[in-house]
């Protein structure tokens, strides 16, 4: 039924991902452990989205291996993903949640309660019956988050979850992420916003042109970056 073993640690072994002739990830080797959120930063095209998708299992490496808890090809039973532009099913908010619960093979008897809990968690209580496609951008992002959490994941991936949101909506999402992380779920996310990385991350990973340039606990990364690229990035200079 539901895989008891955790997907952590997620280990990349010299992973290269190519799309046609373009190298998206270049011989990446790193390991994601349980604990505080890991946040990826880096300029556009640095490979953040590709990394997240590969770590989720949506993309197969062209070279190298990805393992989840030591297993290759582990199905995403306890992983969940929030896409940058989430697609809402043509049904109500609670319909979307019920769909996700069913897809995660949660027993139907528990659906009613879970839907209520999830809506409350993401601050959408009262909007359960509204057609999901009629929610605002921020509300849809929160619903996508609730949908992902419906899977009862051990690892939650988010791809720039606040990129298209205003400050109020951004704060709402960040608060939820903080709550989720505190409940023991491993959060792996990417962001454009250095401030957001500072606010949420346990450790920060800087990507540039498909390679991992630097990785460090948040405070260390921000106050004493070791590589030139990291220093430039923290200083607010453009990395191209």
């Amino acid at each position, binding site marked *: 039924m539901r895989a008891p073993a955790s997907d952590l640690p997620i280990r990349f072994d010299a992973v290269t991902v190519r799309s046609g002739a373009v190298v998206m990830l270049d011989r990446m080797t790193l390991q994601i452990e349980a604990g505080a959120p890991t946040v990826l930063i880096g300029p556009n095209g640095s490979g953040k989205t590709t990394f997240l998708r590969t770590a*989720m299992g*949506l993309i197969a490496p062209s070279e190298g291996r990805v393992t989840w808890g030591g297993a290759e090809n582990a*199905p*995403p*039973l306890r992983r*969940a*993903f929030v*896409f940058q532009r*989430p*697609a809402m*099913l*043509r*049904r*109500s908010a609670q*319909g979307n949640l019920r*769909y*996700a619960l069913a*897809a*995660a093979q949660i027993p139907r008897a528990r659906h009613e309660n879970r839907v209520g809990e999830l809506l409350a968690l993401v601050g959408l209580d009262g909007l359960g*019956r509204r*057609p999901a*496609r009629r929610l605002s951008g921020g509300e849809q992002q929160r619903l996508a988050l609730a*949908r992902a959490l419906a*899977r009862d994941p051990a690892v939650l991936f988010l791809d720039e979850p606040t990129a298209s949101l205003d400050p109020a909506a951004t704060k709402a999402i960040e608060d939820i992420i903080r709550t989720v992380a505190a409940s023991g779920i491993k959060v792996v996310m990417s962001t454009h916003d250095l401030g957001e990385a500072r606010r949420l991350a346990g450790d920060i990973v800087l990507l540039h042109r498909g390679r991992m340039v630097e990785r460090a606990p948040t405070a260390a990364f921000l106050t004493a970056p070791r590589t030139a690229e990291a220093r430039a990035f923290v200083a607010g200079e453009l990395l191209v």
Partner: protein
Amino acid sequence: MHSDASALELILTGDPALYAIVRLSLLVSLSAVALSAIIGIPFGAFVALVRFRGREGVIVLLNTLMGLPPVVVGLAVYLALSRSGPLGSLGLLFTPTAMVIAQTILVTPIIAALARQAIEDLWHEYRDELTAMNVGPAGRVATLIWESRFSLVVTLLAGFGRAAAEVGAIIIVGGNINGYTRTMTTAIALETSKGNLPLALGLGAVLIAIVIAVNALVWVARRTGESFAC
């Protein structure tokens, strides 16, 4: 049907022959659409979602078959169902069943081709989410068919329009038998060939009114459905 009466008189007096013809037209065309949907929607979903060798060729073929000439289909089905043909022992020639078969052959490619397009478009929209939610192949097909239900309804209407309008296939395989295989379109063809043009035109107006009514019904159903898009 009395040739001297106008179509309006036949409607108002509740002429049984006219109502029998209308009933048969609806029965044949709606049955053909239903059968075509049962065959065409799953097939279209399959082609949309499964990468198999020759897929591009199948898509081109489906789109081409949308334009099958009805008379050619009628002739082929006639030869197949004739007593001297391969399926003659079924005794289906000159029956409403033969008409349903011919129209199903005409309509299935339309529904399959349009369903494929609708589902493939939705697959692009939902592919990431469904993969991330670990939804299996059967679940994907069911989900996408449900999500594309409004487009699919329009597809069914296109199929119904094609079926209700055609005369070439059903007049050959049905034989336009009075009281048995005569439909609106074959009756119009007959009255025209008899020179009874006013009656033919009147029947034509009735046929158009019926098709409008079916479309209107579906539009109402669609609007109600959309407002409850749950």
